[in-house]
Each structure stands twice: as C-alpha cells, then as structure tokens.
C-alpha cells in the first residue's frame, strides 16, 4: 500500500463532476478519482479548513463517529472495477475492528475530518488510468486547480 495526500480538487470541464487528485506522500505518482460535485465540495471545505455555519453531511458523519468513540485508523482505496473505485474505512470500537465499504469520495471527505491517513493498494496504483491520464492532465490548464492546489 502507498500513503496518499489530497493534492487538489479540480473541476472536470467535460462533465459535471470533480476530480480529486491524490498524490503519493513520498513520491510523485498521482491517483485521480472522479467524484460528484457535492463530495468534491466536501473535500475542498476540509482542505481549506473551512468550518461552515451548519454541519455538512460529512461533518455529521464525523460527529457521529466521535460520539460513538470510534477510532478511525485509515481509509484505503481498495479496488477499481468498471471505472468505479472502491474504498474501505477501518474503524476500531471496543477492541474490535470493522471494515466499512464506502465510495472513495466519502472515505476521503471523512478521512480529512477525522483526520486519518489515506492509502491506496499497489494494485489500484498499477491499474489506474496510467499514461492516458498523464496526457489528460498535461492538457489541463493549471488555473483549473485554482486556490485548491496544495
């Protein structure tokens, strides 16, 4: 597994989605994940350290987790299948460990709020879009990253 940091969230000009760019903590490999605009927004708020006047859905998720006394140890992007990424959230409670299935968008938005580390399996890093993706990213205007570039 490799540890990743959220490098930025950018709008995909071709679709109504956003791209979360994860980058190796010790390295230069990146893993882009397409997410819905609501989840992209949730990730941006956490990156910018913005606390909105009312709790967002992911703030609520984190609040529930804190009240339950859960120890959220890590989130892992575990698989890609038919262009869908899968993630798991690892939680310890009362001495037992639970693995919760989640979309990577929710898992990342949650991890930034906990906070806890984000990983991807080597398999996912190998099978990500690869060269095609690099070409795609090169074409992107750096300004698209806007103020969220980290």
């Amino acid at each position, binding site marked *: 597994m490799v540890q990743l940091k959220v490098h930025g969230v950018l709008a995909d000009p071709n679709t109504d989605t956003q791209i979360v760019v994860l980058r190796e903590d010790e390295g230069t490999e990146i893993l882009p994940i397409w997410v819905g605009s*609501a989840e992209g927004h949730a990730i941006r708020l956490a990156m910018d350290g913005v606390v909105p006047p009312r709790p967002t859905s992911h703030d609520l*998720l984190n609040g529930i987790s804190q009240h339950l006394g859960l120890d959220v140890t890590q989130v892992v992007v575990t698989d890609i299948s038919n262009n869908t990424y899968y993630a798991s959230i690892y939680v310890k409670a*009362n001495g037992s460990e639970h693995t*919760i299935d*989640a979309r990577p968008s929710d898992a990342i938005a949650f991890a930034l709020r906990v906070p806890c580390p984000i990983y991807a399996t080597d398999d996912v890093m190998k099978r990500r879009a690869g060269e095609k993706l690099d070409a795609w990213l090169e074409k992107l205007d750096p300004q698209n990253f806007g103020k969220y570039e980290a």
Partner: protein
Amino acid sequence: MITQMKIRGLMFDPYNNSYIVLLRCEETQDMLPIWVGKPEASAISFALEGLSTPRPMTHDLMKLLIDSVDAKVLSANITDLKDNTYYAKIHIAYGDSFFSIDARPSDAIAFAIRTEAPIFASDDVIQKHDAEEVDRWLENLKPEDFGKYEV
C-alpha cells in the same frame, strides 16, 4: 412538546432553485416545509422510493457506521428555527447510553428514513413558521410539482 411528522412530499422550488421537503403532522394537518439542497434532496428521494444505489451514498455510510457498532437512531427532531435556518438533532442510543447530535434537518431526515427512525418537530417550530405564507405558497403550486414523490 413535540409532534411526530410524516414526509408528505418532496418537490422542486423553481423560485429558489432548491428543493422542499414537506413534513406534515397526521393529526393536526400542520405542514412544515423545509428547504434543502440538491444533494440532500436526492438522498431523501432515493430513500423515499426505496431505491438502493450500486454504491453506498453518504447517508448510507452513516447507517453502515452506526450498524457496525450496533448503535441505533432513536429519532430525528426539528428543534428550532432561527433567521430562516432550521435546526435539528439526531438522538442515538449506543450501549447503555444515548447522545444527541446537531444536524441540518436535511441530513437528519435523510438519515431517519434509512434507519426507520421517527421524525419529530417541536411545536415551537411549527408555530414559528409563517403558516399563512406557506399556505398561500402551496395553493399556487400545481399538483404536477409534487411529481412522483407525492406520498
């Protein structure tokens, strides 16, 4: 005092470009409209229609989280209305204790439907919202606006 509310419908408000969850008290017929954002509206509509998505949505994840430790959602309560903002609390039982957590009504409702928890509103909130204004607004609505979410 609190009153149990049922979800009467979910509709699009073209004037505010947002969605309205309409709660109604079965006994008194009191209506409580709550404006919610698009992602929360779709979270509520999925649950109302009993649709399951291929991947867990954010409120499904909340349920997975509490299910993993056998906690239980007791109720979602719309507690206050201040400066046009509604406030809610979710009551959760865990082990021998229980706690309440601050939430937006949209999240509280989306979560309550999934966990089959009742939704309540404080009488104070029901009285505070300007009933007449809402009634007038509702009269102007075409039945089609309720669309397929009418229940």
